[in-house]
């Protein structure tokens, strides 16, 4: 009845992960090289696109391509595709926090003087034009 009994099963209460450590399956060399080639193609693509004038879209395309490369590295070189789901969660939560940091900070820096016309701002940072109702 006591809590203290000789242990019957080993390790933590989680089911042992069949994709952890030494039990992970062996990747194919050709597959790794194929991923590398894909990464190279993406790199050449992003350099090529950078000389095309797409305006605001340039940044979007660059980030999208970079994210494709990052996804390839994370899924296949870092084995998240076959590894523990919790490790993937760690990455996702970290990226979410980066997103929060970005979004809320730029929400401020991009919107200075937007609501309160009485704020003593001489020049709106976003446009460089004199702020409405700016200080003397």
């Amino acid at each position: 009845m006591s809590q203290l009994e000789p242990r019957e099963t080993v390790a933590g209460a989680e089911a042992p992960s069949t994709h952890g450590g030494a039990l992970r399956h062996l990747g194919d060399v050709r597959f790794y090289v194929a991923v590398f080639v894909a990464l190279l193609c993406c790199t050449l693509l992003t350099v090529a696109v950078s000389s095309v004038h797409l305006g605001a879209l340039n940044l979007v395309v660059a980030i999208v391509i970079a994210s494709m490369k990052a996804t390839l590295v994370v899924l296949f070189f870092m084995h998240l595709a076959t590894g523990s789901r919790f490790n993937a969660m760690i990455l996702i939560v970290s990226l979410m926090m980066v997103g929060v940091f970005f979004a809320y900070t730029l929400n401020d820096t991009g919107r200075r003087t937007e609501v309160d016309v009485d704020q003593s701002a001489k020049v709106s940072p976003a446009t460089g034009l004199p702020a409405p109702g700016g200080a003397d």
Partner: protein
Amino acid sequence: MATDSSSRRPTFLADHFDTAEQQADAAKLGMWVFLGQEILFFAGLFVAYGVFRSWHPDVFSAASHALSKPMGTANTVVLLFSSLTAALAVRAAQRGARHQTTALLLVTIACALAFLVVKYFEYQHKFHTGLLPGQWFGVPRTFPGGAVMQRGEAAPALPAGAGAFFSLYFVMTGVHALHIIVGIGVLTWILIRNLRGQFSAEFFTPVDNVALYWHLVDLVWIYLFPLLYLID
């Protein structure tokens, strides 16, 4: 009967773990948590970049053209290749192929060193042409030997605010380069341990985890490259 389980315990298994798998899983999880924190560390730099670029998009665009796209692209390719060799090194270690692991680790380290060499030339060029951070942008300087650079002489016609871009450029690539140097250090440590025969098909976790770190360094560069070098 009190069993002496020490004969069943592999030498690489630490006392506080029950099984090799538990140890490997814990180490890997810990490494991913550490990578999470590295991501947040670099995130600050990217946010600062985002803020200043959103405020001065033209300055950033002009300043970005002053960077060498060929060198940046070369460094990107080198780092991607080093990620490949690092992943292959882990695979070799997983197969217990000691010599292959050594060779692949050596190539990875060589790529890292090549990256730093290219970086050195990039920095040197900027120092000589006055493409410097903040206050120092375009400032007249006297070089050893007496040659004097006048303000705006070598720095291409960039707006004065370009100092902000180069502040971020140097801090971001500098912090990244520091991580490369640390990476070279830990890769070398793993190489030495591998040469000493400490790894096998049953135990190669340190190789796995150091490779994860190396991939992170690559990931950061994957974003740094377009944001710094490829602004239209």
